[in-house]
């Protein structure tokens, strides 16, 4: 086994890892050696082709189809230099005060998080897209919401030089999205941080990690790792885990830390989601322009759902439409006339849903749909149908079992939506892309895995700085909150670095 040594090792390079790397990188000037270990590869700009299956296979864990243990839900998360920030749409949301208050983490205030979040929103150029660059898929959503008196709001998005490819979720082919791969990691590297791609951390022990560096497979996208393939033992005085809400708890579990941290893996939430598709009589601009400009969150508290505009690619759209055969094909052939809305359920941490590991130490997510989350999806589907009809759709496809109308509601039945909703039945499978929890913050090991600064209880050298810190669902798109929490973790490490090294 090869050996290496650093003062600080950061595991993962997404919103959490990229932020920690940047915020600690000034320490390099004092001689502190810092490395980021990233399981995925680093891609060259010209490799972002926008081709659906090719890019999904390259950028996502399991090609975007990571399955829960019962196979009823796929969870999408990135695996690349930049983590999931390479594949998000760049929607930049401040943490909601009601949620942070409800988390009730000692030492964590909304004011502190908001201040840090604003810093990163500015750094990433988060702003409201100008009206002329918003496509009809988005504008019709806003129009429908206004007719229904739904309080529709515009997402700030962190883009610079966006050409409107609509391919954000496949990695921006124009490098417009300001993820950690474009902003924080390059800055950290300029300051002296090393990034070792294709390096998977197998276990973490007392100030030591075992790491496997993989060779680039023949024909695969991405650069080879800067290190020789093989197994490594890396000594590090400080370790910060930012591998995401599935992989960070799994890493700690296979490292045997579940014995002293009974809450490890618990509290997993993920905003289960599906898309509602409306068909218009005419072609609209949908697969050109930024895909996500508007949202409605007024139902998050009362009905447990959020609505967002979205536009997906042929396979993902086909997968998201329920059913098969001629009715399914009819919707697919109408692609240039389709308007899409994403419904996200605000699920809650419960006793069952958690991250575990299998015999080989691989992550396993146990997830059961709560009645409230399932009802949230149905209510969200019906609210979406109202918006689509108000915007002029002639029919709407619903991924829920309806009464006599199959999975399609014609505009003639638009007045019956509440009646149809009462009989609608939700059946998984669904998809999700916001994994959260598993290393929740709190007071002590009986209620949490870390404190409010991400310190793992009982291990002062070990911290967590990613979405696994969330003690419960955030109820909005999470990357800015992850960066804000990671900034706290980095600040505390900077303050304690002399004692820790």
């Amino acid at each position, binding site marked *: 086994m090869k050996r290496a040594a650093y003062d600080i090792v950061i595991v993962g390079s997404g919103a959490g890892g990229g932020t920690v790397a940047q915020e600690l990188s000034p320490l390099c000037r004092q001689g502190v050696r810092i490395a980021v270990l990233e399981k995925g590869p680093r891609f060259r700009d010209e490799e972002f082709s*926008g081709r*659906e299956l090719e890019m999904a296979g390259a950028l996502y864990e399991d090609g975007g189809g990571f399955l829960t243990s019962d*196979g009823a839900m796929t969870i999408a998360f990135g695996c690349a230099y930049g983590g999931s920030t390479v594949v998000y749409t760049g929607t930049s949301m401040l943490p909601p005060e009601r949620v942070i208050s409800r988390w009730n983490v000692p030492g964590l205030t909304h004011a502190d998080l908001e201040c840090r979040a604003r810093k990163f929103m500015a750094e990433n150029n988060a702003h409201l897209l100008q009206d002329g660059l918003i496509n009809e898929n988005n504008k019709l959503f806003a129009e429908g919401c206004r007719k229904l008196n739904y309080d529709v709001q515009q997402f700030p998005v962190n883009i610079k030089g966006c050409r409107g*490819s609509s391919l954000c979720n496949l990695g921006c082919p*124009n490098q417009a999205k300001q993820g950690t791969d474009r902003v924080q990691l390059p800055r950290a590297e300029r300051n002296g941080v090393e990034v070792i791609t294709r390096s998977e951390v197998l276990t973490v022990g007392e100030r030591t990690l075992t790491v496997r560096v993989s060779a680039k497979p023949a024909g695969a996208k991405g650069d080879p790792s800067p290190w020789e393939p093989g197994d490594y033992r890396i000594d590090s005085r400080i370790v910060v885990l930012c591998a995401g809400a599935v992989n960070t708890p799994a890493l700690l579990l296979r490292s045997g830390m579940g014995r002293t941290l009974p809450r490890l893996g618990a509290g997993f939430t993920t905003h289960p989601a599906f898309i509602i598709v409306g068909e218009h009589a005419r072609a609209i601009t949908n697969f050109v*322009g930024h895909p996500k400009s508007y949202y409605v969150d007024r139902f998050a508290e009362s009905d447990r759902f959020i609505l967002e505009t979205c536009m997906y690619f042929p396979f993902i759209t*086909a997968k998201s439409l329920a059913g098969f055969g001629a009715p399914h094909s009819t919707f697919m052939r109408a692609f240039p006339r389709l308007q899409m809305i994403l419904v996200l359920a605000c699920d809650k941490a419960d006793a069952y849903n958690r991250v575990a590991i299998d015999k080989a130490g691989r992550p396993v997510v146990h997830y059961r749909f709560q009645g409230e989350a399932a009802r949230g999806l149905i209510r969200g589907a019906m609210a979406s149908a109202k918006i689509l009809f108000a915007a002029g759709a002639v029919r709407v496809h619903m991924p829920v079992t309806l009464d006599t109308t199959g999975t399609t509601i014609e505009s003639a039945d638009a007045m019956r939506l509440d009646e149809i909703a009462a009989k609608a039945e939700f059946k998984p499978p669904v998809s999700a892309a916001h994994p959260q929890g598993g290393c929740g913050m709190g007071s002590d090991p009986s209620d949490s895995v870390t404190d409010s600064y991400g310190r793992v209880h009982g291990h002062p050298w070990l911290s967590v700085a990613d979405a696994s810190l969330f003690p419960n669902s955030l109820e909005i798109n999470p990357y800015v909150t992850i960066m804000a929490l990671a900034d706290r973790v980095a600040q505390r490490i900077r303050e304690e670095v002399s004692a820790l090294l």
Partner: protein
Amino acid sequence: MPLDPDPTILRAIVSTIVPEAAALDDRGWLELNQVVEALLRDRPESLKRQVRMFLTAIQWLPVLRYGRAFTRLHPAARARFLAHLQNDPIQKVRVGFWGLRTIVLAGYYGRPQAAQAIGYNASPGGWEASR
């Protein structure tokens, strides 16, 4: 090892899920199979085994209900049988069907020709390319 040693089973399922697939030529089927195989290549062997078992079950279970194997059923009967699986009260059966349906849809709609056929032509050039 190919997903389906008897290609007629997968073809019959694909054509039931996506009726347009019946019009694919040999090259189209080859491309579809390549997409499916690439999709499953890095998946655990246990998952591939489950998919093969599910294909076999789809071929032979209709014998109990209709007296014929799936590939020998009329298209309408094939669709009815798959609809039963899709709505089965047992979640494992529904999830199995969902997984197979996902693979089929990836195989069909993952091809650039299918994207073109439905009028999808997103481009890295975005607004400029659309004008």
